[in-house]
């Protein structure tokens, strides 16, 4: 029954869309440019995604105060895909076909991105994806403003190896595509660096896992073999809080077994008593504590907009900030919001990021970013203990995986290919992990 209604709605939407294009030929009569926001406002992912919706509204508001774009005001179209993956595709279709938005900012989990991907490719839309992800993907219609594995996971492992002398590794993750692919890349990378297989322990737990006693005591046991041990955590979402609580209670201190996390930011720490966690690490491209005038202005603006000066800022928020400014610049450069023109204009666009540098959009639709390693402080903020000396360009096809290392992506003409195999010279390679 549900399916039937969906189809009916779809048909209706299509009919509407056709009627609209046929009837309203002078599209320029529209005096606003619509921007779609596709973030879950209810369900499990609301905890993370609601903030991104708010930050987009703030950025659009700011742009309108500056006079809008191409002489028109921007109009936000907010939809709620309710943490339901198929609903993401339906809502994306609605944004592109009914609302006719010029660009969409949205998605958090990889599975939601994979679910909307065919819609964006079919309707030739533009999606800005702001979250760190596993890579192994490059679409002409998607701009990835979050970190690829080489912009987060690999530098974090390098830091632990070189600065803390870690010899034994626990790769602990939630059981879905991002941790599994990231851990596959990390495992290949560690083995390349000469870490023997018995010094790597890989473990997965379900979403929302809350009883960490056995896992944590296994980590403790694994870590007492006389070699310096660290945990690389791709645990996502709600499961983090009980994990860190259990670490604290079982007395695992950061000086004994440090945990470096890729999904724990200021927002996640806000729901947690951070005193037992001091010294555990996170790797991001942005920390709220980074002291630059741009960041300070952004945080002030955010507090004013959300009317609560206790709210934190985090990495995906910065990614939207960069993505939105890039899109604005590309539209100005192209002089139109036409997707093909904007997609071509996007490559090479450079905008300031919040950490005092500039980020550029590369031909593979990923951006250049600095990488920071921070230690958790008692106040729930991160103290930067290490950073890359320059910007790291995002590498969509990992160099450490079989099948993926021969692929490159370059959306400039005449190549225009997201998975060009440099060995066979053909477009259309498949990676093992992407299957």
């Amino acid at each position: 029954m549900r399916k039937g209604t969906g189809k009916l709605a779809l048909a209706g939407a299509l009919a509407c869309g056709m009627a609209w294009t046929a009837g309203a030929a002078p599209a320029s009569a529209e005096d606003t440019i619509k921007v779609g926001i596709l973030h879950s406002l209810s369900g499990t992912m609301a905890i993370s995604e609601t903030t991104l919706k708010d930050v987009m509204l703030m950025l659009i508001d700011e742009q309108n105060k500056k006079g809008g774009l191409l002489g028109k005001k921007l109009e936000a179209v907010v939809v709620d895909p309710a943490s339901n993956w198929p609903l993401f595709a339906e809502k994306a279709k609605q944004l592109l076909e009914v609302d006719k938005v010029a660009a969409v900012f949205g998605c958090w989990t990889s599975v939601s991105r994979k679910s909307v991907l065919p819609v964006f490719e079919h309707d030739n839309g533009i999606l800005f994806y702001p979250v760190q992800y596993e890579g192994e993907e490059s679409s002409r219609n998607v701009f990835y403003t979050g970190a690829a594995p080489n912009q987060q996971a690999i530098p974090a492992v390098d830091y632990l190896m070189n600065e803390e002398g870690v010899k034994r590794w626990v790769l602990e993750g939630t059981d879905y595509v991002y941790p599994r692919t990231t851990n596959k890349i990390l495992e290949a990378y560690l083995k390349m660096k000469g870490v023997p297989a018995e010094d790597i322990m890989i473990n997965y737990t379900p979403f929302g896992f809350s009883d960490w006693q056995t896992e944590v005591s296994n980590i403790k046991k694994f870590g007492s073999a006389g070699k310096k041990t660290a945990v690389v955590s791709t645990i996502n979402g709600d499961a983090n809080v009980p994990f860190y609580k259990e670490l604290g209670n079982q007395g695992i201190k950061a000086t004994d077994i440090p945990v470096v996390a890729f999904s724990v930011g200021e927002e996640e720490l806000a729901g947690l008593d951070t005193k037992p966690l001091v010294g555990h690490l996170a790797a991001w491209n942005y920390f709220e504590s980074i002291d630059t005038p741009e960041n300070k202005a952004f945080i002030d603006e955010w507090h004013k907009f959300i009317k609560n000066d206790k709210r934190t800022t985090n990495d995906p928020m910065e990614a939207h900030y960069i993505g939105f400014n890039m899109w604005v610049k590309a539209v100005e450069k192209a002089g139109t919001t036409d997707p093909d023109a904007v997609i071509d204009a996007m490559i090479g666009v450079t905008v300031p990021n919040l950490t005092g540098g500039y980020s550029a959009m590369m031909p593979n639709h990923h951006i250049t970013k600095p990488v920071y390693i921070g230690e958790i402080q008692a106040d729930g903020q991160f103290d930067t203990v290490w950073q890359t000396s320059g910007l790291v360009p995002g590498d969509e096809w990992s160099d450490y995986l079989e099948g993926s290392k021969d692929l490159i992506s370059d959306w400039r003409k005449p190549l225009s290919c997201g998975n060009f195999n440099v060995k066979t010279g053909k477009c259309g390679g498949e990676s093992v992990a992407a299957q």
Partner: protein
Amino acid sequence: MNRFLRLILLLALVCAATPGRADPVDDILAGFASTSYADIEKTIGALAASGDAAAPAILDALNDGLLEISSDKKLYIKAEDGSLTDARSGAAVTGDTPLGLKPVKVNNRVRRAIEAAMGQMTLLSPDPAKRLNAAASLFHAPDPAQLPAVEAAIAKESDPAVKRAFEEARAAIVLAKPDAADPDKIAAVAVLEARGDEDAKSLLDAAAASGSPPVAEAAKAALGKIRRELAMWGVAQNVYYGLSLGSVLLLAAIGLAITFGVMGVINMAHGEMVMLGAYTTYVVQQAVQSAAPALADYALVFAIPAAFIVGGVAGIAIERSIIRFLYGRPLETLLATFGLSLVLQQAMRSLFGPTNREVSNPTWMSGSMDLGGLAITYNRFWIILFSIAIFALLTLVLRKTSFGLRMRAVTQNRRMAASMGIRTGWIDSLTFGLGSGVAGIAGVALSQIDNVSPNLGQSYIIDSFMVVVFGGVGNLWGTLVGAMSLGVANKLLEPVAGAVLGKIVILVLLVLFIQRRPRGLFPVKGRAVEA
């Protein structure tokens, strides 16, 4: 800018290297100006070796991130209130703040170096807890150079526990020392064998692999014994984890055992009652913290009745407004309460925001103790006790009070109970309120180990139904045994099969079990069931 700073630093380093300063300790301390963690680590070692009286205070401040260095390489300790004291002289800084003050950089590597240095310096501290820490840090970082100091400490020590810790540290050092005599090493192996934990095992592993033949032999024999003991303790530990998981399941399910088990209402909003209890805990904790900070550690005690009332009132309201119209129509009840659970979740999301709320653990629920080879975390331990207490209390209410009697009468034969003058409608409401209130209390306990978020309840609802169905509908004892056996089975499987597969195996076994015994472990017998 950065380059400019580096140039200054370089110049400063050159200046520091020239023999201008009289005091060697000042020269050592200047090393804290470096931005390289390796240099800071070296400086800590040198400072500890210098034996300067100010060293422990300086290292303490560094550990807490309160040590600051000015551009002329003078160290200052910043107090929590922002006031500065000179790190070497201890004099308070009056007047202008020194130029270019910035914190000395600390990371885990530096903290480890501090720990080791403090270990060396506090060997003879008058505080036994500090001596114990010192012994532990020497044990974990055995340094042959410290052997005479440890032996001196053993000779002086009067506290037996600390003395044993020192002897273990000495054993670790002896094993790490290449030129120690074989008999000494064999004695050290015996000390470690008596310690018998994972740390001792890893030291013995190293000795068995690289020691001289007699030492290696002794180490191997000791290892065999330790392995057997550890394996036994490992099973015991898993059983304890299982009981702890079981107690959480029991807490989540026991309210449902009443609403579903006794009344037969399929209440999908049961998890949300747990969630309401957890949010009540948050609100109570906030209130206590602002009204009476001295009592903050006992906020949970106040939260228990509050959560019971909130859950209970919500339950009665739900029963009066929705469920009483749907008795005898399980499908509609299921759908209606599922819809209600979504409404409650979104309501809490709008009210408290989508992000997790922080409920802090009181000090008496943090940390762990060692009981033989068992590591018992206090929060889990209290939750086990708490769940048993709730269970006992509820059994008493059902068995020994007149309300319990009426409740059982109504569920067994509604019409006869009504003709005896029992207001069945009210009993239904109160029973549902009782179940929901107990769910609220469960929320207080769960706020200690899980997220306080609108989704809290969702993650427990399936498990709760599982426990009640497994234990036998309508039987509190069944719920107890069901929860505990599911918990223990889960935790015994988890190390072998992993968390994901372990859960799947449990579910499959459960389905098979229900096929054999559709009424669960302890089926209710009698005419009421057949009716």
